[in-house]
């Protein structure tokens, strides 16, 4: 166990009024909008049945209840368990909460055994435990790589949260943001009105013109552009430097890109709690891509938004024929590889480290690209250990970073392992190309007293871009452009 008793006590304090907890019969730390508590177990099972009927989860659950060997290997990989030492935080224990319901109510042997033993089945207490446990997990899926049986605890958590949300149990922070995004006036999770967005983009352009002496635009509603760019919308308020870096990269490469005015938010909380939400949000991206007749969808520095788009856009928006989805790190990397983007070596001399966001690194998708880029313009790069696909989550994954009331949990139980990992590198900058990770890591550095500045990759890259030379035809002799074998996307 890594945490002190005081830290644990603080982390698990429920910040809600006791009467709310009593009324909702839900002793969890996150706020939940009022919902119907009557006959919760029956409705949970009805929802579970409906989901099993229409989705592919049954395949996984059938398999998991058959092979789960309870070997406890995942104990070595879960940062939550490593922090608390509480057996209830072991990934396999968490999954068993839902698997046991599945076994009891949806397999023949379970139903028969229930009848014979007179077991009444799912109880309200079990639902309460799931509501708590599934939101203690950061859905980072690190344990998946350590499970010999191939059980995807991230998938089980995902399903558990989906079922719970359909009976009304989901963090209010996420639900309210999603409501604004799907049926609100502004159509985005941060409720940024379009005029404000355009204002701030113009402001950023002016800023850059002043600094760099050239016009660096944010193209709006450019029909037929190559890329539709979607940032996690909170970036427009909190990560101006990242956006400036991205605009500067496009200015240097000369490729056409655009931000759509009808829909401009990449955030998709559906990944964290509800498949229906996920599909609706992707549908909005799809509609905007169609409206502007773009060729590709480009997601900004955001882990979950990138993973949702990359891995689920084809599911919901046209299979193989869907718009290709790429992440901005891939774009920048390829531009640099091909010599379309030139970076000044040694532009950053302070020690820099890199945090792999779970959602883009765990599947092995974006791992080496940012490292090569960083080495091209930072003279002092340090790795944290473990890294790459085995990296430790920032502690705010799975949507938990957006739940402000659980910050004490996130920056102790969730993030203490991470804080020590960053502290050990001695880096001045920690690059975290993900809006979620950035917010969580900043809070973590503050609460754990680590002196390290959290930045996006494009924040630093902005300082290293060399303009002018590459315009009107790519010169292949830029730093690191030795291998130009890649083509297409």
């Amino acid at each position, binding site marked *: 166990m890594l945490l002190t008793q005081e830290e644990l006590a603080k982390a698990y304090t429920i910040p809600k009024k006791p009467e709310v907890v*009593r009324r909702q*019969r839900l002793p969890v730390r996150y706020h939940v*909008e009022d*919902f*119907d*508590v*009557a*006959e919760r177990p029956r*409705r949970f099972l*009805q*929802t579970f049945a*409906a*989901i099993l*009927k*229409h*989705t*592919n989860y049954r*395949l*996984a659950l*059938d*398999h998991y209840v*058959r*092979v*789960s*060997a*309870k070997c*406890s290997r995942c*104990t070595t*990989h879960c940062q939550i368990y490593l922090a608390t030492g509480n*057996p*209830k935080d*072991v990934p396999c*224990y968490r999954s068993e909460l839902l698997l046991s319901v599945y076994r009891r109510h949806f397999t023949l*042997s379970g139903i028969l055994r229930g009848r014979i033993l007179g077991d009444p089945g799912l109880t*309200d207490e079990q639902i309460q435990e799931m509501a708590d446990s599934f939101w203690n997990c950061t859905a980072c899926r690190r344990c998946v*790589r350590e499970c*010999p049986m*191939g*059980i*995807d605890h991230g*998938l089980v958590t995902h399903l558990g949260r989906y079922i719970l949300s*359909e009976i009304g149990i989901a963090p209010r922070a996420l*639900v309210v943001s*999603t*409501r604004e995004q*799907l*049926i609100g006036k502004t159509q985005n999770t941060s409720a940024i009105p379009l005029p404000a967005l355009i204002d701030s983009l113009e402001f950023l352009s002016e800023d850059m013109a002043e600094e760099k002496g050239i016009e660096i635009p944010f193209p709006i509603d450019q029909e037929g552009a190559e890329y539709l760019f979607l940032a996690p919308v909170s970036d427009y308020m909190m990560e101006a430097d990242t956006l400036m870096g991205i605009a500067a990269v496009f200015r240097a490469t000369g490729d056409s890109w655009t931000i759509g005015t009808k829909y401009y938010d990449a955030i998709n909380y559906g990944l964290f709690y*509800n*498949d*229906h*939400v996920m*599909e*609706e949000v992707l549908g909005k991206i799809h509609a905007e891509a169609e409206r502007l007749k773009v060729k590709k969808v480009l997601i900004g520095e955001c882990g979950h938004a990138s993973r949702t788009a990359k*891995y689920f856009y084809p*599911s*919901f928006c046209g*299979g*193989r024929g869907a718009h290709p989805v790429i992440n901005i790190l891939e774009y920048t990397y390829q531009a640099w590889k091909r010599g379309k983007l030139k970076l000044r070596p040694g532009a950053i001399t302070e020690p820099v480290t890199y945090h792999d966001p779970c959602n883009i690194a765990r*599947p*092995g998708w974006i791992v080496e690209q940012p490292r090569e880029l960083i080495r091209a313009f930072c003279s002092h790069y340090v790795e944290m250990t473990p890294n790459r696909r085995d990296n430790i989550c920032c502690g705010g994954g799975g949507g938990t970073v957006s739940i402000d009331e659980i910050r004490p949990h996130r920056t102790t139980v969730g993030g203490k392992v991470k804080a020590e990992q960053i502290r050990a590198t001695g880096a001045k900058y920690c690059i975290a190309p993900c809006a979620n990770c950035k917010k969580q890591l900043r809070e973590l550095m503050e609460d754990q007293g680590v002196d390290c500045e959290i930045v996006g990759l494009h924040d630093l890259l902005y300082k290293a871009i060399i303009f002018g030379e590459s315009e009107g035809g790519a010169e292949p002799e830029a730093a690191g452009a030795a291998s130009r074998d890649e083509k297409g996307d």
Partner: protein
Amino acid sequence: MSLESWLDFARGPLFRLCFSLMILGLLRILVLTILGMKEAWDRSADKIVPWRDLTVQTAKWLVPVSSLWRKRPIYSAVSVVFHAGLLLVPLFLPAHVLLWKRAVGFAWAELPQALADWLTLAAVAAGLGLFAGRVFHSAARALSRRQEYVWPLLLVVPFATGYLCSHAVLSPRAYQWLMLLHVFAGNLILLLIPFTKIAHCVLFPLSQYVSGLAWKFPPRAGQRVAETLGYADRPTWVERPRVATDRILTPTEEA
């Protein structure tokens, strides 16, 4: 019935029954899983599956050379030895190979007796070690169901009795009792395999692909779920409170 006829029964008809049930049971879950995978594939509009990565992950655990040793190396080593004993000894012990040859007319290569003996002893030690590990590791205890404690002990029984029967100096009666225990335990194991976690002996190679396919969400599934539940017009993002779909009932128990 005499001890001998019990033994003949256990080695003959009972073994054949248990063995057949095991094969049928394993075939059943294997076929069901493959059909499930097919269904998931058909339902999904997205046919982009990272086959290569899933195969690498499968191979990594099938031949655990690197992945096991980084964390908890002793546990890993014991587990590998246990699996090696469980797989090799029953199938390739010279005495067992001989039995197969007599029964079906053909057989396969056998392990050197000395190696088989060592593997047997190692499997017994490993089984007891794993049991102890489970009992004394608090996280493992929290995870364990009844079968988690029963299996390592049950698996040790035929190994221990088999070793004693072939090496200890025993009275004929003691030998027969031990042999009876050996065969009955073996039969019980065969019978239980398809219905317990040991089913992983055939399902294991499919695990990664199953997870990979389960992440493929069928289009419009969310909408259909809402329709099935009767609130298609009130999805989760619509303002609450949403009430029970058919009738409103009072809470069954109030805190």
